[in-house]
């Protein structure tokens, strides 16, 4: 970060001008006013200078970061091996005649609703998780994703200490239990 005292005082400015500088990226003189494109603050340029000091010398090089995730997707690349392994694109269903599909859909929605009610009942309760290799941990259940791939938990009591917030992979669990 540039220190205004050392680099931004233009030869045309007086100490009085400097202390009234609003935008730290520009030198200051009382001749004309402009709005800085960077900080949106009012800056004044001296007639002799006519351009901000910061423009003359770039203070830092600009780092271009890679593009972030697509804001409309659910955060998974459907072609990634993880997605293919964990999220089957179609839920298995019998391709039969209309009545059969309807019956299947009805029982699917009933089963799913009951499961979601179970998860609602479980939220903010201490839950015991039995993982593979005989690992048992206890945590306060927070939320699950729709594919039941990850659970968000708080105060996870692990053998090496308590983790304030954590995500548990459901594929690492055998079962979990809680009291109603």
């Amino acid at each position, binding site marked *: 970060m540039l220190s205004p005292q050392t680099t931004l005082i233009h030869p045309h400015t007086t100490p009085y001008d400097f202390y009234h500088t609003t935008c730290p990226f520009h030198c200051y003189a009382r001749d004309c006013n402009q709005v800085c494109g960077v900080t949106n603050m009012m800056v004044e340029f001296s007639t002799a200078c006519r351009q901000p000091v910061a423009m003359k010398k770039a203070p830092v090089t600009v780092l271009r970061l890679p593009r972030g995730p697509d804001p409309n997707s659910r955060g998974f690349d459907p072609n990634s091996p993880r997605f293919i392994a964990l999220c089957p694109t179609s*839920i298995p269903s019998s391709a039969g005649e209309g009545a059969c599909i309807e019956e299947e859909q009805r029982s699917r929605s009933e*089963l799913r609703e*009951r*499961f979601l*009610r179970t998860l609602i009942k479980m939220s903010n309760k201490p839950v015991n998780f039995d993982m593979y290799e005989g690992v048992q941990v206890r945590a306060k259940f927070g939320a699950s994703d729709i594919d*039941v791939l990850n659970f968000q938990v708080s105060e996870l009591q692990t053998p090496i200490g308590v983790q304030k917030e954590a995500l548990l992979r459901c594929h690492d669990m055998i079962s979990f*239990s809680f009291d*109603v």
Partner: protein
Amino acid sequence: MHGWCERKPPEWSTYLSKLVKVTAHSNQQYEGWVFTVDPVSASMVLVTLPEGDRAHVRVVLGHAVESVEVLQEENKGNTLRLASLFLAHGAEALSPEELKKRRQSLRQWIEKNHIPVKEEGEMLRVANVLTISSPYGVDDCSSSNEIILSRVQSLVQSNPEHKH
């Protein structure tokens, strides 16, 4: 039993409310009454009812299920108890008149907020995308659109005549 995860919902439904013994990975065995089987992850929700009001719930993840054995068929008392544990609490305590009153009051509240609503038997259908079933509380709204769902839920919650 291979392919527990590949089974279809009607097959899972046959286990509902029955007492089963589930053998999971590394021969761990769990017993309990089946409350549901999640159609997405094939996870089984088993409930045991020790003495008293408490209930112990164990969920066995679908990928770990190795075999399921039915020990006892369903009985009416337990089925009702399972349902009352998880499903909307207080539903059984309300008489049909009280339910009707709640339905009417909620319907008027939604209409007052200029949202189309119509009654379909016991159910309220809001703008053809959301249904509210009895006892017409915040948790009884269901919709496939989560944005509409949360808006309507906050509307239901702000109903001045509803006291939970």
